[in-house]
């Protein structure tokens, strides 16, 4: 690739860091600048709600690479330096101090921020959000034995924090406004299994519970629900989703719609500008529509896609989504779009240690799957399901439902078909 203006990556999170790695792996040998608003080396976020909160992992354990890696690979890290403006036409970004930086190609990896709840008491000390290492380190201070944590939002973040806080000896109540937890993409049966796991560990989950206000003198002492219920609290964790950081791109005129829009190669409408990770709404070639994913897998994969596009390789993003969550020693994995199914097939039960769920469309094609198991006992099965989806397989529902039937055999059948 010809030398010239540097490749600049805006955002040194998981997707941004991996984009830099991929560019070097693919042979780009020009100037490479990674700009990050946070003071930390690029890191993975899964430990923030788990290992970091329980003390099993330290911030440095989350780093994608150590500092020497960036030095050795000629990746210029500018941490604590966020861009304030972008000019696609001049191919320049403006930095916080007003200086401008020319780029040959730009990868936007600005990520997302927690959705804030505008509530009375929302600014009290002890009201926490969780998105980055600094949030996690702040939250740890509140997770002491005897603490009373109220978690607002029964999504992955809320339930993982609830599990970690319980492990640290805190009393935990989870408030979910909807009728079921994990409602954004999981069938009710899986949500019920998760609620049962939490109940067994002493975490109380209240669905249909809407927060009205947070109370306290300077710091949190209680929350009040819309039905008048009052719960004592020494801390509140709000986990009600994230908002993609599109402002810079939107102000520069790039098309945005809950994410920065991009094609199957993660290229935006602007020449030589690409987008990856939580803030990208790219066209997934498999599904034929623009999809924004908030996952570890997506940060990994779009980093590769964008880097290949930058290098002119013409990649296509066609991943089948995949996420996991760890709670109370159980691992939940989800692939595809389980709530898109017309028929559901269950295999095994959580009470017996492992519960798989398969979602089939009207034509019998597998479109989604869930796997809940102790430790990683169900991970292998979920991976087979993901591969069946990738192949557009129409597996026999009776075989899917039968715990003694070999799932891998279905994979071989789909290969032969």
């Amino acid at each position, binding site marked *: 690739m010809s030398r010239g203006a540097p490749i600049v990556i805006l955002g040194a999170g998981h997707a941004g860091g991996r984009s830099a790695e991929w560019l070097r792996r693919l042979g780009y040998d020009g100037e490479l600048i990674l700009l990050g608003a946070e003071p930390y080396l690029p890191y993975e976020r899964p430990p923030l709600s788990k290992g970091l909160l329980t003390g099993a992992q330290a911030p440095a354990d989350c780093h994608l690479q150590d500092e020497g890696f960036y030095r050795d690979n000629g990746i210029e890290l500018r941490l604590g330096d966020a861009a304030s403006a972008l000019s696609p036409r001049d191919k320049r970004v403006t930095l916080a101090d007003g200086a401008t930086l020319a780029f040959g190609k730009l990868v936007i990896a600005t990520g997302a921020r927690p959705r804030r709840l505008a509530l009375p008491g929302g600014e009290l000390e002890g009201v926490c959000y969780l998105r980055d290492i600094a949030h996690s380190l702040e939250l740890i201070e509140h997770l002491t034995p005897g603490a009373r944590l109220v978690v607002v939002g029964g999504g992955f973040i809320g339930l993982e924090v609830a599990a970690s806080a319980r492990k640290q000896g805190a009393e935990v109540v989870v408030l979910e406004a909807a009728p079921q937890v994990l409602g954004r993409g999981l069938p009710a049966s899986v949500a019920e299994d998760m609620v049962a796991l939490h109940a067994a560990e002493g975490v109380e989950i209240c669905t249909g519970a809407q927060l009205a206000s947070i109370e306290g003198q300077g710091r949190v002492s209680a929350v009040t629900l819309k039905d008048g219920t009052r719960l004592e609290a020494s801390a509140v964790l709000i986990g009600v989703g994230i908002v993609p950081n599109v402002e810079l791109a939107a102000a520069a005129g790039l098309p945005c719609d809950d994410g920065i829009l991009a094609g199957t190669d993660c290229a935006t409408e602007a020449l030589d500008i690409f987008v990856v990770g939580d803030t990208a709404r790219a066209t997934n070639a498999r599904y034929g529509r623009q999809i924004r994913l908030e996952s570890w897998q997506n940060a990994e994969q779009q980093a590769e896609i964008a880097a290949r596009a930058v290098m002119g390789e013409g990649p296509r993003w066609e991943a089948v989504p995949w996420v996991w969550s760890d709670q109370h020693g159980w691992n939940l994995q989800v692939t595809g779009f389980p709530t898109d199914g017309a028929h559901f097939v269950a295999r095994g039960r959580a009470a017996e240690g492992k519960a798989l769920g398969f979602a089939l469309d009207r034509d019998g094609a597998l479109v989604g799957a869930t796997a809940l198991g102790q430790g*990683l*006992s169900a991970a292998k099965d979920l*991976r087979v399901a993901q591969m069946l989806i990738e192949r557009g397989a129409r597996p026999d529902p009776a075989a899917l439902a039968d715990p003694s039937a070999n799932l891998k055999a279905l994979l071989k059948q789909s290969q032969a078909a």
Partner: protein
Amino acid sequence: MSGWIKVCAAEEIDEEDVIRFDHGGRTYAVYYTPSGHYATDGVCTHEEAHLADGLVIDDIIECPLHQGRFHIPSGKAKSPPVCVDLKTYPVKQEAGDLFIQLPAV
């Protein structure tokens, strides 16, 4: 002392599968792939996960935690996020039993 340690009867590992084998305070993964029996360290080089919970396809083991891939016969890391190779150990079959050769401690 280095030496050959019995793992299990060969028939206890299904084809295209892997089992966990603990010995001397360490964990190994023992595989039966279409090209034969192999052994590697049992824990992924990326993050703590037992490879015996992973999926074997041909000569590839995929970690159950992050789907990083290793080539089983060589232990080579094949796809991100894994970048450090797995240590491999010789395996032999005698009278229907599998043995793994472990280095001196």
